[in-house]
């Protein structure tokens, strides 16, 4: 099976400023890669090179087995890009927006209704986008991204600033698209979201990928294999213990549970944020 996204040793500079410095990524069909990093880390520049908006200074981009930018037009017919900016035609209706993009993909007789229904805008398709709320616009952005049933999705902060309901709807769409077989490259600031949606995550900072692995493996590697148990032994005594899972951990947990009423149990694995800080020496908001 052809790898959906291949980027090898990508480099790009804006004048004297090196924005991307030797980025390598691969995404297989049906898999989601979370691309995590602070503002200015090189995420957007990398996506621009992968989607044909920028030509790399050096390196190789291959999408669905085709070379970018040599086969740019063919590739762009099979990808979907969801931008961080809500770049919709506000004076046009939701239906008109989708029909316009369908025509750009060469689709005739396109019916926007099912797609609008899928993003929860079935009853607002004939309203002007200028009348949409922020969440509705973002859902329309996702619908536009899916107009051509793309084999590769590039999603730039698709849930940024959305209400929980809209964010959940978009996450469900991303999962459904991956399940359909689309490769997804997702950039986000939201570590929880990346954790939930990504098969692999890549941490990028100052134009370089710091690490690329599955979220689970990263958390196990850089966290502690232990559980933290808080129990109430008496009316005035709360006991908290960290029990390593290696060795005789199971017995120690059983004993702790028997000693009092359990208030909370948490694993001590690292969060993705912890791991990013470990690599970059700063948080995502820095």
């Amino acid at each position, binding site marked *: 099976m052809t790898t959906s996204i291949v980027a090898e040793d990508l480099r790009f500079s804006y004048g004297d400023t090196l924005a991307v410095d030797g980025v390598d990524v691969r995404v297989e069909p049906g898999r989601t890669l979370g691309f995590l990093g602070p503002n200015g880390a090189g995420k957007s520049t990398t996506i621009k090179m992968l*989607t044909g*908006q920028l030509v790399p200074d050096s390196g190789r981009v291959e999408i669905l087995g085709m070379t970018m930018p040599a086969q740019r037009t063919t590739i762009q017919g099979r990808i979907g890009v969801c931008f961080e900016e809500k770049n919709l035609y506000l004076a046009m209706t939701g239906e008109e927006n989708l029909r316009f993009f369908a025509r*750009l993909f060469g689709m005739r007789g396109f019916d926007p209704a099912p797609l609008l229904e899928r993003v929860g805008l079935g009853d607002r398709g004939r309203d002007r986008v200028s009348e949409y709320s922020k969440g509705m616009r973002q859902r329309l952005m996702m619908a536009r991204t899916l107009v051509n049933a793309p084999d590769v999705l590039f999603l730039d902060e698709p849930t940024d600033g959305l209400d929980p309901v809209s964010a959940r709807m978009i996450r469900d769409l991303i999962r459904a698209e991956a399940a359909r077989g689309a490769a997804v490259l997702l950039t986000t600031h939201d570590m929880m979201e990346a954790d939930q949606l990504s098969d692999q995550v890549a941490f990028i900072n100052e134009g370089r990928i710091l690490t690329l692995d599955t979220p689970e493996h990263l958390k196990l590697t850089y966290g502690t294999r232990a559980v933290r148990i808080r129990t109430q032994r008496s009316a005035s005594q709360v006991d908290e213990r960290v029990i390593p899972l290696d060795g005789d951990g199971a017995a120690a947990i059983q004993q702790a549970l028997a000693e009092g009423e359990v208030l909370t149990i948490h694993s001590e694995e690292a969060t993705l944020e912890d791991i990013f800080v470990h690599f970059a020496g700063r948080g995502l908001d820095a």
Partner: protein
Amino acid sequence: MSTSIVATIVRKDLRELRADRFFLLLTVLSVVFYPLIFWVLPSTVDETLRVGVVQRDVGPLLEGVEDTDGFAVTEFADEAALADALVSGQGDLVAGLVFPDDFLSAAASQQPSQVSLLVTAAVPPEVESALSTLVSELALVALGEPAPTELLADPVVLGEDRVGDQVALREQLRPLMAFFVLMTEMFALATLVAAEVQSRTVTAVLVTPATRTDFLAAKGLVGTGLAFLEASVVMALIGGFAVGAPILALALLLGAALVTGIGMVAGAFGRDFMTVLFISILMMVPLMVPAFAALFPGTTASWVQALPSYGFVQTVVEVSTQGAGWAEVAPDLLMLLGWTVVAFAAGVVVLGRRVATL
């Protein structure tokens, strides 16, 4: 470039413009309001009369004329040279006087020796009156008393004689009207382009199979097409196509492409409505100078002739007021074509670069 993609973007642009109330207002104003104000007339003229003179025995007397208010005199060797200068517009001359060899002696002896007056068709009758006064003054200075006979002969009109067929001021407004409409459409296109750039919808378009060339071609077609169509409607409403319709249509088409190129530049730099308005006005003002200059009698200054819109205005003026044909307006159309190519290329390059750096 894909024609189907270009057509799709053009249809989208037209849909957007149709939904834009401001654009609709501009369009309605152009089509309705401009013809309604067709009667507006200019209120100022250049009062200096630049006169060419073939002098024989009145040479010394002419030295004092330079000091006379409102006259500027240029001397010529013979009548042919003076006529050539008048026809070619050399030195912004409005008329010529050819004094006969025996002017002074004939005037003194009350003989019928008269001064020839050469004028072009565009010179108003008031000039003839002023020059008659000038000749009489010269005779008065020379003879010490008023000349006994009328000294100025009937004027010799160089080029087409429009006596009895004067160009109404209303007709002189046609190029101004046509250019106003083109300018209006330039602003509409600039607004459309700026919105597309600022909202980055163009970026969304360019990650589909649509290319930058498709996008620029669509904008060029929309801008040129709308400007041409609307200017044609207004020209038709003010009777501008009664003479030389094919020439005028070509001039309008080239003018539409010219302002489209400029509109693309304005749109590329515009950040919002106000900056688009500012940049557009900045570009409109020099472009409108030739259209205003056409309202005033006399030869147009050379710097005005160098402006990009001069070829358009001059073609419209010559065709609609003088019935000029292809041969007469060919130099103006060629100049317009040259400027159109330059402006359109500039628009494509500037907007293309702007889009590429988003």
